[in-house]
């Protein structure tokens, strides 16, 4: 019994902290017009929570289907793919297009491209026979290098203004989530999450591995393929909304495992999402109040995420 109590307690504390972060974000340092500020910040919080949800859920599910706690979608080269897609748009059409194209169209194209790639890569890596973890990580990293270099190749030819603007758009900008994208994103994420919910009974079985899962009567291939599509949509939405944040998923899910002390999805999933909210909303509060908009949150997350992960490794606790 006490083993069950701990995750629940942790979830309760995390929920309280998340609420506290949200409250601080909504109310600290308001100047003037309250209704405007509440509406403006409300949208931002909604966007941040959406991103936390996408990153948390997709990373947990990804680790479930790949059967390890180190691989994450962004380590597999997704952020680099996002940079590549966006660079390609600027490269072939100029930055003006990026700025004038209807946001939804650009967003839809990015989501589509990322989903297509994700499903292809996953199919190829995870569904065509057994491959070692080493191989998958290496292939992921190498893909990342390939994408980054293709982007660099194109960026090399950009005008400095365009380069600068492009560079700016790569700092995950939580302050600039476009409100018109929120609706589309919410719909996509809700759909993906609903699909995940319907097969959620299988998650704890899948983590036991392919043979176990099959012997327990789970249609393994079909299940994995479905989860991969869900992950792709979630990752695409998160990355397209705020740009690449490499270590964020790893950070929150690792922390969730350490805090919960169990691998069961009913605890890990909400804990990861709550931790994500605390990091993003709390982080954004810090960014706006302490750094006064001068630094992008993603730099801080990369810094802290890497640092905390190393500390976790040192403690031998990350596994």
């Amino acid at each position, binding site marked *: 019994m006490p083993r069950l109590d701990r995750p629940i307690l942790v979830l309760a504390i995390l929920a309280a902290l998340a609420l506290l972060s949200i409250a601080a974000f909504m109310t600290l340092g308001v100047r003037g017009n309250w209704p405007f500020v509440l509406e403006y910040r409300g949208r931002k919080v909604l966007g941040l929570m959406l991103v936390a949800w996408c990153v948390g859920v997709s990373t947990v599910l990804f680790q479930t289907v790949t059967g390890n706690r180190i691989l994450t979608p962004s380590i597999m080269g997704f952020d680099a793919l996002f940079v590549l897609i966006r660079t390609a748009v600027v490269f072939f059409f100029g930055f003006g297009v990026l700025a004038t194209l209807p946001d939804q169209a650009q967003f839809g194209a990015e989501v589509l491209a990322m989903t297509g790639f994700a499903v292809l890569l996953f199919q190829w890596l995870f569904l065509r026979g057994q491959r070692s973890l080493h191989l998958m990580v290496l292939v992921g990293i190498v893909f990342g290098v390939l994408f980054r270099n293709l982007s660099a190749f194109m960026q090399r030819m950009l005008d400095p203004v365009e380069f600068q603007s492009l560079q700016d758009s790569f700092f995950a900008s939580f302050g600039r989530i476009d409100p018109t994208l929120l609706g589309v994103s919410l719909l996509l994420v809700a759909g993906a999450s609903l699909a995940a919910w319907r097969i959620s009974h299988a998650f704890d079985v899948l983590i036991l591995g392919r043979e176990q899962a099959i012997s327990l009567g789970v249609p393994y291939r079909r299940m994995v393929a479905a989860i991969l599509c869900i992950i792709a949509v979630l990752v695409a939405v998160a990355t397209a909304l705020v740009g690449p944040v490499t270590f964020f998923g790893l950070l929150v899910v690792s922390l969730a495992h350490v805090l919960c002390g169990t691998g069961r999805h009913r605890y890990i999933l909400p804990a990861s999402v709550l931790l994500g909210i605390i990091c993003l909303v709390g982080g954004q509060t810090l960014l706006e109040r302490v750094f006064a908009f001068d630094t992008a949150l993603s730099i801080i997350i*990369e810094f802290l*995420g890497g*640092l905390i992960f190393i500390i976790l490794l040192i403690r031998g606790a990350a596994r």
Partner: protein
Amino acid sequence: MTHPAALPCAILAVVLLAALSLFVGVTDIAPMDVLRGQADARQMQVLLASRVPRTLALVLAGAATAVAGLVMQMIVRNRFVEPSTTGTVESAGLGLLVVTVLAPGMPVMGKMLIASLFALAGTALFMRILRMVPLRDVLLVPLVGIMLGGVIGAVTTFFAYRFDLLASVGAWSMGDFSGVLRGRYELLWLAGALAVAAYAAADRLTLAAMGRDFTTNLGLNYRSTMVLGLIIVSLVSATVLVTVGVIPFLGLIVPNVVSLMIGDNMRRTVPWVAVMGTGFVLICDILGRTIRAPYEIPIATMLGVIGSAAFLFLLLRRRHHAAP
């Protein structure tokens, strides 16, 4: 599997590539004119001031970077590392940024030394962290290195963003030989010398790669061998970074390819790694100079695209073999 004549053949091929590199560029220089002494003064000057230095720089940087990757893999005892997956390159970059902000007028030698110190500190930190991590999985090593590189890179980005130096940092992180001229690459001889030093120390490094206990049993000073390896790697990384910028991927892929070909005895692999590193860099730079002439595509980009594609091919071709 290697024929005794294989290495001489490879060296010959690289010499031919180097010769080709001498005659690729914006200025028209015909090899026969030079040999017959018919080249005009300007062509000779371009040859001596630009082509020869550039080719030498390519040879030195290519060989040294590939060997540094091999040394790194030896001292960390892991196939998946190279200076850019151990925080070394990122640390050197941070050092260079610090110099640029605090003492922009410092001569290049000073910049290189400070970048080396940062690289050494960063690599030492990496090694220290490795000793603290419970290493049950070979993959944790590059992961820790990538994390550390990410952390250091975030610090660099933070300050670069603050001082509006992102473009400069971007320029360093892009290896590019277009700026090489007589008088502007000579630092790379140091990197070449370090590659030779690695060869001289190859036996010790090979033994050190077998682990601390084994080495100590043989009466070798494990610690000093490791420090030697670290200094080689840090100095090579910083030197190459300061003179031409980061040459990514080379240190990872070349030693792996060589290892597939002839195994892991370092005394035998160092010459191969140096030769193949050189050849690879030469090919990429020659392509980079020709594809969009008269403009250039930086070698970092060429190498990143070609190198990663080649590596993917290698990985997947060998998918039935157990990864080392």
